C-alpha cells in the first residue's frame, strides 16, 4: 500500500535521526556513554511499536499525528539528555505514559458525539481545575500554578485546558443566536481572571486564543472576533494597571538590556544563547546552554537553537505546523459539530502554546513561562498533549 511505504520512510528517517543524535551524545562524553545509545534504541522501539498498534488496529485514523508527535518528542529528548541525563530518563517514562494514554484513548473511547451533552460536567471540571491552584497552589518561578498532592506535583490548569475546550465545544456546538454566547463568555472571563490571579499569563493568553478560534469556527462571524479582541485589549490594560507582575513583563519586553543582571536575566541569556548558536549551531555538547535558567523546561527552544542551530529551530516550527495541519484536517473531515469544535480547540491549543513560548524566548512578545508541547521536559504537559492528540486521532477516524 502506497501510504504505508511513505509512513515507513518517514519513520526510518526518524529512527536514523534518533540513533545519530544519541550516538553523537554518547561520543562527546569523556568515556563512551553506552546508556545514551540504549536510550536512543528504546525511543526507536517505542515509536515503532506505537505506530504498529495504530496501523494494525485503527487503519481508518490519521497515522501522521502520532509520527509527528514522536519526531518532536525525540528532538526534545535528545536535547534534554544533553542538558541533564536523569531528567531525560524521567522524560522517557513520561513519553511512554503519554503514548499509553494516546493508545488507551483511541482504544477505549467510544464515539465522541455522545459526549457532547455533558456540558455542565465539563463546566464544573474546568472551574475546579482552574480555580484549584488559586487556593491551594504553590509558587514555582513566580507563578502560583502548581499543586502538590501527596508528593506529586502537577499543574491543574493543564488539565483544566482539556475540560475548558470540551466545555466550549459542547456549548458552541448548537450555536444559533447571540444569547447562547453569554454563558460561555462568562466562563472564559472567569478562567482568564483566575489565570491572571495565579500570575500565569502565558496560560491566560492560550486560553484566550483557543476561545477566539473556537468562537470564530462556531459562529463564522468576524464581528465577534473583533469584539473579543477589543475586550482583550481592555482586559490587558486593566491588568497592566492593577498588577505589578504584568507591568514587569511588559517592561522587560520593551527593553530587556538595562535589567539584564536581574529581572530580564532569563530572556537576555536566552537571546545570547540563540545568537551564539547561529544558523547551524555549535554542535551538541559544545555550547553553553546551561547558563540559561530553566533550560530543559521553558527555554528548551533556545538551548536547541544554540547547540543544534537555528535551522533545527525552524524545523521544529515546520513540524509543529504540519502537526497542526493534520489536526485541522481531522476537524474538516469530522462528521458532527461537537467533534469538529473539539478538534479545532485542541489543535489551536497546540499552535497557541508553540507561538507563545517561541515568541517569548526570542522576546518577540512578553515572556511567559509555559512549556513547548512535546519538546519540553515536563510530565503534565507531555501527558496532556498526548491525550489531546489521542482525542484528535479518534476524531480523524470518524471522518467519512
Amino acid at each position, binding site marked *: 500500500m502506497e501510504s504505508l511505504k511513505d509512513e515507513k520512510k518517514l519513520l526510518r*528517517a526518524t529512527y536514523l535521526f534518533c540513533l545519530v543524535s544519541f550516538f553523537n551524545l554518547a*561520543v562527546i562524553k569523556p568515556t563512551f556513554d553506552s546508556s545514551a545509545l540504549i536510550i536512543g534504541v528504546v525511543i526507536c522501539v517505542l515509536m515503532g511499536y506505537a505506530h504498529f498498534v495504530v496501523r494494525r488496529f485503527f487503519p481508518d485514523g490519521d497515522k*501522521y499525528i502520532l509520527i509527528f508527535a514522536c519526531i518532536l518528542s525525540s*528532538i526534545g529528548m535528545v536535547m534534554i539528555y544533553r542538558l541533564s541525563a536523569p531528567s531525560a530518563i524521567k522524560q522517557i517514562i513520561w513519553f511512554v505514559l503519554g503514548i499509553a494514554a494516546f493508545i488507551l484513548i483511541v482504544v477505549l473511547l467510544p464515539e465522541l458525539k455522545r459526549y457532547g451533552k455533558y456540558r455542565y460536567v465539563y463546566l464544573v471540571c474546568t472551574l475546579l481545575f482552574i480555580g484549584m491552584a488559586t487556593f491551594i497552589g504553590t509558587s514555582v518561578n513566580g507563578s502560583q500554578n502548581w499543586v502538590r498532592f501527596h508528593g506529586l506535583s502537577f499543574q491543574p490548569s493543564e488539565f483544566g485546558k482539556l475540560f475548558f475546550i470540551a466545555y466550549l465545544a459542547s456549548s458552541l456546538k448548537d450555536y444559533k443566536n447571540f444569547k447562547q454566547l453569554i454563558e460561555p463568555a462568562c466562563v472564559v472571563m472567569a478562567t482568564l481572571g483566575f489565570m491572571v490571579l495565579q500570575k500565569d499569563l502565558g496560560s491566560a493568553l492560550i486560553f484566550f486564543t483557543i476561545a477566539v478560534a473556537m468562537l470564530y469556527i462556531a459562529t463564522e462571524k468576524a464581528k465577534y472576533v473583533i469584539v473579543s479582541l477589543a475586550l482583550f485589549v481592555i482586559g490587558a490594560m486593566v491588568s497592566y494597571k492593577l498588577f505589578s507582575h504584568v507591568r514587569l513583563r511588559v517592561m522587560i519586553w520593551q527593553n530587556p538590556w538595562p535589567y539584564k543582571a536581574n529581572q530580564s536575566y532569563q530572556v537576555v541569556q536566552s537571546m545570547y544563547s540563540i545568537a551564539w548558536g547561529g544558523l547551524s549551531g*555549535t*554542535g551538541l555538547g559544545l555550547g553553553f546552554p546551561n547558563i540559561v535558567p530553566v533550560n530543559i523546561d521553558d527555554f528548551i527552544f533556545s538551548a536547541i537553537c544554540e547547540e543544534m*542551530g537555528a535551522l533545527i529551530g525552524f524545523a521544529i516550527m515546520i513540524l509543529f505546523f504540519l502537526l497542526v495541519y493534520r489536526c485541522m484536517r481531522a476537524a474538516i473531515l469530522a462528521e458532527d459539530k461537537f467533534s469538529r469544535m473539539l478538534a479545532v480547540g485542541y489543535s489551536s491549543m497546540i499552535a497557541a502554546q508553540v507561538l507563545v513560548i517561541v515568541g517569548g524566548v526570542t522576546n518577540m512578545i512578553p515572556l511567559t513561562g509555559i512549556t513547548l508541547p512535546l519538546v519540553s521536559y515536563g510530565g503534565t504537559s507531555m501527558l496532556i498533549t498526548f491525550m489531546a492528540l489521542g482525542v484528535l486521532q479518534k476524531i480523524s477516524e470518524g471522518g467519512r
Partner: protein
Amino acid sequence: MSSNIYLAGISLSGLGQLSTVFKFIIIGIIYVIIFFALKIMYKDLKNGDKKQVRSQKQKTFGLEVVDAGISKTLKIGSVVPINGEVTIGRREDNVVVIEEGYVSGHHARIYQKNNNYVLEDLKSTNGTVLNGERIDNKVYIRSGDELKIGTTLFKVIG
C-alpha cells in the same frame, strides 16, 4: 603527566570535530524528514478528501437474502456485496431497496470501520433485528449473523 594533558587536549579537539560534523548530519536528517512529510501532504491534498483506497488483504462481506418476505424487489439467494457503505430502506436512493410497509424510508446502514463492519439503525420505526434481538443504535456484525429488516431476512456472509 604532560602526556595526560596532551591526551586530554587531543580528545577534546577530536570531540569538537565530531560534534561539528554531526550537527550537519542531524540537520540534514531533519530536513529529509520534513521533505518526506511535505511530499506526503502534497499527495494527500492532491487526492482531495477521498478516503484512502483500502488494501486488498481486508475481508469482504456480503448480505445474502435468506427470506425475501413480502417484498417483491429481492430474490432469495441473491447476494449484496458490502463495499464501503450499504444503506437499506424503502426509498429509491438506498443501495438495497425493500418495498414494504414495515421498512422505513432510510432504515439502516452498514459501513466499514477499522477492519470491522458496523450495522447502524437509522432510527427506524420498526427497528432492526440482529440474531433475534432488536439493536440499539450501532453494533458490530460478524460473518454468520442474521439480520431482519421488516419481513426480509438477510445473512451476513464473508
